[in-house]
């Protein structure tokens, strides 16, 4: 049989699918996205009351429209210029302060933020940053460059240098094996810093969220990922911990997604939980939930967030990384797609967590004893997610992606009220493939927001935002 005939037959087979397919109700699809949870409906009521009050007292500025889901699909694209001053809108979602909340609500207007963006030099055509961490003497950013894991270091967040990553003793780089590797988290303990991530087959970058599909036993990817750890004494030179199948492999999908350190041990999470006192020798135990994407140590508790065994949002705490206690998290009623919790942070006694799915939500709990409740969401359109959150005093920044554009939401009251910032010039433009943006992670230091991610298909990018006050 000729190729022509084979393709013709294959097309006819697909036509049977085409001829049977029904036209879905697009309104129903949009409505499903816009269904609000009870908490969100309460937020809407509170917002309505706030707007009415603002009308009475003359604060017309509070009448800015909600979101930009109906933004024009086609627009003139201005040349990218950096630095760019963002246009900061008033808070779009305001929640009444909880009686148990210690943080005070500031009365002054929300200050604007000036943003700059830079792209880091890479050796391949496809690179991205997935994580950033603050160290004693600067910053670490991790991700991938081509098929290999990559780490950059910086003293000030503005100038970045590439660190050296060596494979484990007797092993080869991922690229040399036709595989790829990616760094997604950092932690330091006792002068030693570890970077965690994973190595797999397939293509670079596909593991980031695409690997979730594999978790659902989809045949979309066949990456066979294994967990990976790199260790450094000076944060400039890194060596991969040699692969131990019983610790970093064995199951179909084994990835590390995040790591944190207490005074005496590292705890890494992902498709399992790992502990190590020196970063070199690790012990693996089952995850208390399903895949966990974030872990912090808050001085007392290791707190981890991700998905619970049923695939819903899951959050857990543990004093030792061994025994984990589940924490209550509000499950939005419109959850027809998994909305994993992707990062978390603590401010005072309050916890904040962010997640993916259709809405890019922020949850907050005043303390460890109460349920995490949704306090803000980026939007509904085309699957936004928030993947990073950082806190410095009462200033909080959450970052992610919405419809191929980077998203930044900020708060100056400890995460109770939020301002959404979107600038195609700075955070990415979905209408220009080379300028699409995704922001993965963020830190705040000395009043500066430093976020990392990617621009276009292959540029590792750093954004710096400074509050103007």
């Amino acid at each position: 049989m000729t190729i022509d005939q084979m393709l013709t037959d294959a097309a006819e087979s697909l036509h049977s699918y085409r001829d049977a397919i029904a036209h879905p109700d697009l309104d129903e699809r949009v409505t499903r996205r816009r269904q609000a949870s009870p908490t969100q409906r309460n937020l809407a009521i509170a917002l309505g009351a706030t707007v009415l009050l603002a009308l009475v007292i003359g604060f017309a500025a509070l009448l800015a429209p909600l979101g930009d889901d109906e933004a024009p699909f086609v627009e003139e694209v201005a040349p990218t210029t950096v630095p760019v001053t963002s246009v900061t809108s008033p808070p779009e979602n305001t929640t009444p302060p909880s009686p148990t909340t210690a943080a005070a609500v500031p009365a002054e207007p929300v200050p604007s933020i000036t943003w700059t963006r830079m792209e880091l030099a890479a050796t391949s055509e496809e690179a991205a940053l997935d994580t950033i961490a603050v160290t004693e003497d600067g910053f670490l950013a991790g991700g991938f460059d081509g098929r290999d894991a990559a780490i950059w270091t910086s003293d000030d967040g503005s100038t970045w240098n590439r660190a050296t990553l060596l494979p484990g003793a007797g092993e080869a780089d991922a690229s040399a094996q036709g595989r790829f590797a990616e760094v997604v988290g950092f932690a330091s303990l006792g002068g030693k810093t570890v970077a965690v991530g994973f190595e797999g087959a397939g293509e670079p970058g596909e593991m980031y969220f695409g690997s979730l599909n594999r978790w659902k036993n989809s045949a979309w990817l066949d990456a066979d990922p294994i967990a990976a750890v790199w260790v450094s004494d000076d944060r400039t030179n890194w060596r991969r911990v040699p692969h131990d199948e019983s610790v970093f492999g064995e199951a179909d999908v084994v990835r590390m997604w995040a790591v944190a350190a207490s005074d005496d041990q590292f705890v890494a999470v992902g498709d399992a939980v790992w502990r190590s006192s020196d970063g070199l020798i690790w012990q693996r135990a089952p995850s208390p939930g399903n895949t966990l994407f974030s872990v912090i140590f808050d001085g007392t508790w290791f707190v981890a967030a991700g998905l619970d065994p049923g695939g819903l949002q899951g959050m857990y705490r543990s004093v030792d990384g061994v025994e984990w206690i589940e924490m209550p998290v509000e499950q939005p009623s419109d959850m027809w797609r998994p909305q994993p919790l992707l990062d978390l942070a603590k401010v005072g006694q309050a916890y904040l967590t962010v997640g993916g799915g259709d809405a890019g939500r922020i949850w907050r709990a005043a303390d460890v004893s109460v349920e995490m409740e949704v306090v803000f969401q980026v939007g509904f359109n085309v699957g936004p997610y928030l993947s990073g959150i950082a806190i410095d005093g009462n200033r909080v920044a959450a970052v992610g992606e919405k419809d191929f554009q980077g998203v930044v939401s900020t708060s100056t009251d400890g995460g109770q009220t939020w301002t959404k910032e979107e600038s195609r010039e700075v955070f990415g433009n979905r209408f220009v493939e080379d300028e699409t943006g995704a922001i993965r992670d963020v830190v705040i230091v000395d009043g500066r927001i430093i976020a990392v991610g990617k621009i276009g298909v292959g540029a590792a990018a750093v954004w710096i935002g400074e509050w103007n006050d």
Partner: protein
Amino acid sequence: MRAGLGKAVAETHSPPRGESQSDTSFAAFYAREYPRIAELAYALTGDRWIGEDLAQDSFIAARQNWAEVGTYPAPGAWIRRVVANKAVSRYRRIQVERKALPRLWRRPTGDTPPEVAAEAAEIWAAVRRLPKRQAQVIALTYLEGHSLSDIGEILQCSPFTAKTHLQRGKQALATLLRANEEVTE
């Protein structure tokens, strides 16, 4: 910096085969094109649910901006380009895949279209392994019967380039399928 996608297409496209300009309402556009676009997305993503997700999101975007998209000489060419590019672009595939997770998780329980025959599924899987332009040209040629001229307009390349992609794609496909047969034997 390149111009915006919609504008660039609007400037160059004429209606593809079978596209009437007499009814420019979105409802008619959706009724006419959705099954074809979903089929194209299915062929290029390899997953019905991901493909339908992608197709529906594209139509929602088109509807939101129909005041402009509807004025294009060929909105059908526009949405084919959007979907063909989204389906084969690795970067965008990641996003679609992420969004489609619950569809895989909570698949509809009602009537669903028939499964594609195993032999056909294997051929489309091989098509998806081709370079993205070759895969797009083959899908547009064999699924919808577009001419090289139409395809050039949809993908914003010359008919000659489309022809080159088609020929090289078929050659590569023959090699791939032959290799599969040898492995099977």
